[in-house]
């Protein structure tokens, strides 16, 4: 397994509609393994293939430690209810916003053996399913967040500190 680089901010890959996984090959299995490792390394609860530069419809989610969901070609088939809360994205580091999501989501997908299965989730899992499947269509949560939170105090003063630190490096 290998950790991959997470694309951030204005990388156009994040805005591309991904194509379905045509066949589950060893490369796809490796991709899934790498995505889980990358997500865990970044302390995330979900990661989509385009975030590591692969334009395929594949997603990994781990909202409950140790319970990894791998979704290949996922398709949301049912949603209900509403939840409001904060959301962040590994591709948009340091930012977070207030996003409304359905409180219940039912999604159909293939597992790594190519078998179709249905995953249901509420609360954080429902939020993560929506967030990650959005990535596959080039959508980011900032497109429809009600509002964004201001960065934390430290981060607002940090540009100056960073400059200071750079000076010292030289």
């Amino acid at each position, binding site marked *: 397994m290998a950790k991959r680089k997470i694309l951030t901010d204005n990388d156009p890959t994040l805005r591309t509609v991904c194509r379905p996984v045509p066949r589950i090959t060893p490369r796809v299995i490796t991709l899934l393994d790498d995505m889980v490792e990358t997500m865990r390394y*970044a*302390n*995330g*609860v*979900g*990661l989509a293939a385009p975030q590591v530069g692969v334009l395929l419809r594949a997603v990994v*989610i781990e909202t409950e430690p140790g319970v990894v969901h791998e979704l290949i070609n996922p398709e949301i088939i049912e949603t209900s209810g509403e939840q*409001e*809360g*904060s*959301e*962040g*994205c*590994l591709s948009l*580091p340091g930012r*977070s916003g*207030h996003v409304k999501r359905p409180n219940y989501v039912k999604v159909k997908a293939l597992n790594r053996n190519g078998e179709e299965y249905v995953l249901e989730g509420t*609360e*954080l899992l429902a*939020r*993560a399913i929506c*967030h*990650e499947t959005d990535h596959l269509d080039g959508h980011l949560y900032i497109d429809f967040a*009600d*509002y964004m*939170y*201001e*960065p*934390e*105090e430290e981060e607002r003063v940090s540009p100056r500190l960073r400059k200071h630190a750079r000076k010292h490096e030289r």
Partner: protein
Amino acid sequence: MAEVKNVRRAALDVLMRMEKEQGEGYSNRLVDSAISKHGFDGADRALLSQLVSGVTERRITLDYIISKFSRSPLSKLDSDALCLLRMGIYQLRYLDRIPQHAAVNETVNLARSRSRGFINAILRSYLRTDSIKFPEKPDDLRLSVTYSAPRELCAKFISIFGAVESEKILASYLDAPALTLRVNTLKTTRDELISILEAEGFECIPTTTSPYGIRVTGSGLPTAIREGLCFVQDESSQISSLVLDPKAGDVLLDACACPGGKSFSAAMLMENKGSITSRDLHASKLPLISSGAERLGISIIKTEERDSSLPTDKKYTKIICDVPCSGLGVAAKKTEIKYRSLSENAELPPLQYSILAAVSKSLEVGGVLVYSTCTILPEENENVVDKFLSEHTNFEAVPFKVGEHNAPSGKLTLLPTAEHDGFFILKITKKSN
């Protein structure tokens, strides 16, 4: 997706949800689910519960202060702006370990851009103000603003207990609630348990009236609870068991038993000999009693799902009749209780009476029944039992004395203090059929 771990954000989410549901969801349940959702631990976890319970407990006081600075009435504010203002003022006023600039900045950062300036202005003008004048007259308004209790409740307490006593009661609602344990005398003694708890780093104070209670302070829950050496039970509730005085061989009914504390206490006083029927209306809660009994090594408890307001033929030598009530004796533990409208209590006295009347039919001649509530309102206590005694002349009240509490009329009201809950206890016996 990256998880956003911001304690103040999570606290705001819980407070807004409570505001929306108007006290429907108990704050501790919402806090627990936020903790497990975000995986908060240590200091984050403590700050989250402190913010939620503190803001809830002081809401009326905080709103009074905000209204002194806000030009528009509070009802016109967005609910998130109002909740943020409450959180901000709460941190500035009551949490001295949080630096002021952090309390202001981190609160303002959570706001939507259109209310940011407004929230910032109010918090900063609060900081510039030396002291805020609270109303001095009339008493009900003064108590309401000072102790954050609805004016209606303050007026009611003043009419029953007078202003001085009411002030003590309302102040006790703001005390950090005591965690009191009842030693499992089937497995250990109070002194032994104290040394076990102290070894685990808890500070222990033996209760004065109950010889089985220990008030503990410390962080987290003692492992002795999981090991069945004790269970959580307020001293007032322990006192009610002492008043009933069950003995080995008794055939005892606990008519509204959940979550089971009084049944457990009785089983210990009975040295696990005899029989206890722990009855409750809600079958879903009964497994709590069975699992608790198992943990404590009690074998004489049988659970029963039944509506206690309907009489049965079976007879018992001792009966515990701890009826549903307004809970105004335990408002320090469940902050939402004090904010409930008094009109919600109207249906309680008839229910309490019907349970007492039905359950009393199951008492053997010469048997003892203890009626109790965790409230201090006469209409749920004295009035219910006086009506019962006047309509059931074959019953009489039994005078009792526990510790320093003397009850020559067989009735005892314990007002809530920092040490124990508010409680009412009546002891009666059946003279003839």
